[in-house]
């Protein structure tokens, strides 16, 4: 009798394990925030990049996203990160997606667009949300800058083996319920450390029914679940999405890759260290109330008490004090000052389409001081413009930006204001994430769009 077929994670791990604790790395991605430091440290040590064709450098984190941008940044001193990263990357012969490059965008958005991530690969980047790319059945995870040096110099990483976890999502998400809501539901239910140390495979009917963009959103948020990485088994949806991408294999090599990729799934009796079951029908549109993605509730709910939220009273009190909220206060109807659609969570074409469908023919409330939409990549931006989405956003009162991380995080330059309440399609509502003292509520792009119009946190269903 054949041994039980292992989990997808186990297969990926075994394929890349050179010896216990030493894993081969197929792709390394760097960004300008830490790229120069990593590359210059290599240079100073007299080391080389072992396979420059497998390393890609992206200008995404601190680049200006205002139209007509140059190397200049709103972050004081930011320009040096860009110019020094560029110079170091060129000296090592690495591919750079530069500020004005037509392929520029957020690392986790452009990597799939260009076929840099592929099923079955290991891919690392010095960025927490690298697990986003696990949506393609690759083992992708975030590393530190010194680890990036290590991966570049040796083609390997020293890394302890994570556990294997499966989140089985049965049924289908209801109308108006998005992968972002599914992720927030999972994190709110099982905690921001629910997936800690785990390679989390998302499986089940509700997951396979998602398009690639939805799968990326789900895997992106696994970081906020504490996961080491996230995975979705590749299938025909994945292959169709990747076919013809720039760095994807072509011709006979594509066929060979496909044959390999079709074996990449967990066996029916594969062992997992932990399994969680989620009923997709129970998931509702969500919004965060506090300062961790775990602090999320259904949009129709009220701010929970410490007991309802399952939090230590001081943690709960601190979050509420920061957010300027009281237990029992309904989330819907809270006046907002700003709105942000963007980030590697929700800045792809389908996200923009869904938000634009709500904004079409409407205008944001005059009390919403700042509303931005930042496409995840130049490719997304071009595709959106070809459909006229930019005009819908601008007519509604949103500023249409160049691609990048933008106000997903406060880099020291542009920000929302202190005490301002912002509805945001991003992944983190930490204190001061979008500016010193800014109060961030995370939600799906459609909830962001609806709230911007209403001027208060609102569901798309409530718009007149």
């Amino acid at each position, binding site marked *: 009798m054949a041994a039980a077929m292992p989990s997808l994670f186990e297969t990926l791990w075994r394929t890349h394990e*050179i*010896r216990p604790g*030493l894993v*081969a790395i*197929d792709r390394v991605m760097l960004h300008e*925030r*830490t790229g*120069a*430091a990593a590359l*210059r*440290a290599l240079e100073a*040590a007299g*080391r080389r990049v072992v*396979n420059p*064709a*497998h390393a890609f450098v992206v200008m995404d984190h601190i680049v200006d996203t205002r139209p007509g941008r140059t190397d200049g940044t709103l*972050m004081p*001193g930011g320009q*040096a*990160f860009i110019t*020094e990263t560029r110079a170091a990357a060129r000296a090592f012969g690495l591919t750079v997606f530069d500020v004005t490059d037509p392929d520029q965008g957020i690392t986790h958005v452009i990597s799939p667009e260009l076929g840099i991530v*592929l099923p*079955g690969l290991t891919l690392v980047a*010095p*960025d*927490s949300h690298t697990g986003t790319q696990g949506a393609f059945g690759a083992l992708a995870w975030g*590393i*530190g*800058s*010194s*680890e990036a*040096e*290590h991966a570049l*110099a*040796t*083609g*390997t990483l*020293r890394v*302890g083996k994570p556990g294997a976890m499966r989140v089985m999502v049965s049924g289908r998400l209801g109308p108006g319920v998005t992968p972002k809501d599914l992720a927030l539901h999972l994190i709110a239910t099982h905690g*921001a450390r629910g997936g800690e*140390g785990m390679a989390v495979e998302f499986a089940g009917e509700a997951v396979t029914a998602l398009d690639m963009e939805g799968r990326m959103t789900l895997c992106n948020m696994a970081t906020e679940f*504490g996961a080491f990485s996230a995975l979705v088994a590749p299938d025909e949806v994945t292959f169709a999405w990747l076919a013809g991408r720039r*760095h994807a294999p072509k011709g006979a*090599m*594509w066929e*060979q*890759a496909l044959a*390999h990729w079709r074996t990449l799934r967990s066996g029916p009796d594969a062992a997992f260290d932990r399994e969680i079951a989620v009923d997709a029908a129970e998931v509702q549109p969500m919004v965060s109330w506090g300062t*961790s993605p775990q602090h999320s509730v259904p949009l129709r709910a009220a701010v929970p008490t410490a007991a309802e939220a399952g939090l*230590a009273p001081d*943690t709960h009190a601190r979050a509420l004090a920061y957010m300027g909220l009281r237990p029992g206060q309904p989330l819907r109807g809270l006046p907002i000052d700003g709105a942000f659609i963007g980030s590697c969570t929700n800045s792809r074409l389908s996200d923009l389409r869904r938000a634009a469908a709500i904004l079409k023919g409407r205008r944001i409330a005059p009390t919403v001081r700042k509303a931005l939409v930042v496409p995840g990549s130049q490719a997304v931006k071009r595709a959106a413009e070809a459909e006229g989405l930019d005009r819908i956003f601008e007519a509604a009162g949103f500023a249409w930006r160049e691609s990048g991380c933008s106000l997903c*995080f*406060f*880099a*020291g330059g542009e920000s929302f204001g202190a005490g301002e309440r912002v509805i945001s399609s991003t992944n*983190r509502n*930490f*204190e*001061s*994430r979008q500016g010193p003292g800014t109060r961030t509520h995370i939600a799906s792009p459609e909830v962001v769009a609806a709230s911007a119009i209403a001027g208060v946190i609102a569901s798309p269903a409530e718009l007149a």
Partner: protein
Amino acid sequence: MPEPLVRLTAPALPFWADNIDTDIIIPSREMKGTGKTGLAAGLFANRRYRNPETREEDPDFPLNQPAYRAARIWLAGANVGCGSSREHAAWALAEQGFRAVIAPSFNPIFFGNCVRNGIVPVVLARELVEGLGSPVTVDLEAMTVTGADGRAHPFGLPAEARTMLMEGLDPIALTLKDGDAIAAWQQADRAARPWAWLA
């Protein structure tokens, strides 16, 4: 490369809320240079200074108190180093002179960043962390932490991390010793997965 560390006795900074994220350790606005240095003054900037711009100190923050100014060990709460994976958190701590962080649990990325930068990450039960006082001794030979009351508490560390910290080793040098095994894997992989190779 970090200095080898076998045994260290030093003042221990008590700053132990749970979930102290890397942005509290070093706010993004403090990451001004492109390198690994010039970060110490930004360590804990939002808590350490009343006004981070003018660097006016907050006398209530323990690092600003005489007993802890020379702290080289940090006593923290659970899930320390969560949030952004920025390695600047470990760089800032190292530059300030910290050689150990003692906490009930660590964010895994931060844990690794500590080891790589010569900082011993010590996992110890919450009640023990809170009872250590100052000074504290971290002993990598005995694998114990000793508090101000002289009581020693054992702790664990992966063998490789311990070697690196004790010998001040750079992980790249360590891995390159395995060059033959890596080359053999690559050769076999080029045959098995040619589609995975771009050059």
